[in-house]
């Protein structure tokens, strides 16, 4: 099929193109308590094609589409013809496709049966009690195989695992029952880490039973100690991207400080080509560029922008790629030192969000620990809100770090003077 599509691209007279074939074999298991609700197998293939055509006045047209593996020859010809025509309508400044040869290394073997079995075993062995237990969970394990080729001869085939488990935990006290939601993504199953994270969630669940309404508070420091903090660091990575800069949504260009008067910890954020057990642990990006280890932000100053090849070329950025895995270096203080004085630590939001375009930060508090005057109150309700541009100068983060799938970030992050909307 790959060869048939290539043949028909050539027959169209198209000389600039990218073609990829993605095969995903998935095993899924859905549990209610520890009983199997449903099992599923997926075996899905797709061919994605982007055709380019040089246009007048120095523009380059492009359009893309997906071709089904069940497409007939005439289906393929019709799809490609439509895409090639649409490419003539889309006028963007000229850029070049990747042309550096790749060496993605040996293809990994992925045993989805073994990975799935490990997840099931790990969940069966979680320590539950009569009052804190597992409500339900869904296990997704995939073997992903991607074959990429572009018109410059850049070609790779990679195979990698990706997994996700969604877990709901309950805690109850008589008729009063609460739940917490967790979603863990990874390459394969790290049984010990999974058990540790779920048992931590069960402890939080127990605390949620005894929350009091979040009181009215003045602006307050908020500590992030869960994967919600990844949203904060993704904001930094996004603002350093060529895509955002070219779109005028960011001015974080190379050599600039990300803020003025930074008195807190200065962020250092690195892209890494490989990160163990990340679901993005493969050495090439979707456009055929090799991943590299490089520093994007060093001590609060942009050292290198990154992004899709098109936007990088527009901005004159050399040797770039689409970052999949990143590592944020720890700060100056220990976790214990960061946790000093008065603060609100929220360990469960409804949905914590950092708007990468506008920088607004917001989330409803489902479970928080309010540390005030040496006392700790367990609170729920109300919301946290703020603006990244206001908190960057003074933010602090721990020297200790923790991995959440494709991101390694400080274990605790302290954003100062966020607005807290209390309930009473």
């Amino acid at each position, binding site marked *: 099929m790959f060869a048939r599509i290539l043949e028909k691209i050539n027959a169209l007279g198209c000389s600039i193109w990218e073609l990829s074939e993605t095969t995903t074999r998935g095993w899924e298991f859905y549990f209610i308590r520890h009983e199997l609700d449903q099992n599923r197998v997926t075996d899905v293939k797709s061919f994605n094609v982007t055709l380019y055509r040089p246009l007048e006045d120095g523009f380059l047209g492009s*359009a893309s589409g997906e071709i*089904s593996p069940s497409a007939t020859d005439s289906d393929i010809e019709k799809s490609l013809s439509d895409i090639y025509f649409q490419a003539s309508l889309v006028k963007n400044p000229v850029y070049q496709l990747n042309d550096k040869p790749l060496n993605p290394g040996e293809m990994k073997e992925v045993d989805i049966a073994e990975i*799935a079995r490990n997840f099931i075993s790990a969940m069966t062995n979680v320590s539950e009690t009569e009052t804190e237990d597992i409500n339900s969970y869904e296990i997704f394990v995939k073997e992903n195989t991607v074959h990429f080729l572009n018109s410059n001869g850049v070609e790779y085939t990679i195979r990698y695992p990706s997994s996700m488990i969604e877990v709901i935990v309950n805690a109850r006290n008589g008729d009063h029952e609460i739940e917490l939601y967790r979603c863990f993504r990874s390459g394969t199953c790290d049984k010990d880490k999974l058990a540790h994270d779920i048992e931590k969630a069960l402890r939080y669940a127990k605390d949620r039973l005894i929350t009091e309404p979040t009181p009215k508070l003045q602006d307050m420091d908020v500590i992030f100690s869960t994967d919600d903090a990844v949203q904060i660091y993704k904001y930094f990575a996004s603002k350093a991207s060529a895509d955002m800069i070219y779109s005028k949504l960011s001015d974080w260009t190379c050599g600039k400080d990300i803020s003025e008067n930074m008195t807190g910890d200065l962020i250092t954020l690195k892209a890494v080509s490989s990160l163990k057990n990340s679901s993005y642990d493969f050495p090439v990006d979707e456009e055929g560029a090799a991943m590299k280890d490089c520093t994007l932000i060093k001590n609060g100053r942009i050292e290198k922008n990154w992004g899709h090849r098109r936007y990088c070329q527009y901005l004159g950025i050399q040797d770039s790629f689409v970052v999949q895995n990143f590592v944020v270096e720890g700060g100056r203080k220990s976790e214990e030192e960061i946790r000093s004085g008065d603060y609100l630590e929220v360990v469960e939001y409804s949905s914590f*969000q950092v708007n990468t375009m506008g920088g607004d930060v917001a989330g409803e508090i489902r479970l928080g620990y309010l540390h005030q005057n040496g006392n700790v109150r367990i609170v729920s309700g109300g919301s946290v809100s703020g603006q990244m541009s206001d908190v960057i100068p003074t933010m602090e983060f721990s020297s200790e770090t923790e991995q959440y799938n494709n991101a390694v970030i400080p274990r605790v992050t302290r954003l100062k003077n966020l607005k807290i909307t209390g309930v009473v």
Partner: protein
Amino acid sequence: MKAPFSAYLDSLSPSLKTLVGILGKSFEYVSILSTDSVGFTISISQRSKSVSGKNMTTERGNVVRVYRNGLYSEYAFNEVPENMELLAESIKNELNRQFDIMAKTGTRIYDTPVLLDEPLELFVEKETQRLPEEEDMKRLVDQFSAMSDCGVHTIPRALDCRISASSTHISKMFISENRFLRQSYVYTEGTCMAYAPSDAGEIKLAYKGVSGCCGPEVLDGLNDVLANMPKTMEEMLSSEKIVPGEYEIITDPGISGLIAHEAFGHGVEMDMFVKNRALGAEYIGKRVGSDLCTMHEGALCEESVTAFVFDDEGTLAGDVTEIDHGILKTGICDALSALRLGTKPTGNGKRESFSHKVYTRMTNTIFDSGENTLEEMIASVKFGYLLEGTESGMEDPKHWGIQCIMSRGYEIKDGVLTGKVVSPVVMTGYVPDLLGGITMASTDREVEGNGGCGKGHKEWVKVADGGPYLKTKARLG
């Protein structure tokens, strides 16, 4: 014109009927959902232009559902060999490998009855004026380019103005031993979005969309949307931070829809009842809102982006009255959850795509209209905000918390809009308090279908929601 049903699916149906027959020898129930949906996505701004034949609902593939010994299993695939015997063997072999893992791990089955598979044949091609696969893309690119040009010149400080749209011609076919259902329809959505820097250097957004169960003709409505963007952006640029507190609020139809969706949309998805994850199960027949609160759910409620004829399990679309004058009447249900709960499915079994599992999902979730004018509602507010601009929401069916993030609030003091705008606005609260506080509802109502809805943090599907302007009280921050 009719949206024609997929010729590909028609050509495939004899083979798939054969496959159902073969698998039927090994399983107590077998069904297949097949899809062939084509469409486009277009996005035109000053800085970037793109056209693609893909969007979130374009797909071609099949999913087999089988049942044996109390367990439902599924196999999704999109390469169809000629020999159905071989395909049936590979499906059974792969599922057997999973059964082996279950045996090795001592996995118990959540025992579920078998589906009834009542006989039904159905063939529906819905009306549309235009088809996405026949759309004049040059005309559309030219139209959107002109609109983007207009936007950056007329919208204050605009750094860019993006006009985007997607349209899909959906064909779905459901086959079981006793059912043969086919449907085709077109839905389309489009959005104008502009961004500009505030005096403080923060990026402010203004956006609004159009959508419907129709062809790309609905995109002509984007011209009216664009005409209102300069005013919206001016308001966003002059906006201030809100002082956190409890306020009287009036929600515009979009925010009313967001509340409907997050409160008693997710809150009464009955697959959550099966897992004891929804408080709603304990409140059937009880008061959850004021007398002015009546809410409907179902694909039949509105000709929106999710106005299908049958759902992804072959259940006919419905129109459920979830809340009747403040009393919670019922929830919405997929077929397997209905079996487990001993109730009837409501036509709300939906998949993100053919390769994803069915969950109970929303379609159109809509508050009924009331008897007030918006002017009367504003005049009744002592101090509060008129809220507009859906950004996001999050459900909490177990505890009935609610989080809605909105782009702006218009201050009302002593019954008059003061001209002051706050942004962004985070509304949180307890659902029965929010709905119980509804004291006025406008006579008109609108339904919006832009964007997507997830379950937890995954499984994205098209939904629509809306209602009239509603007046209630809420905590804003």
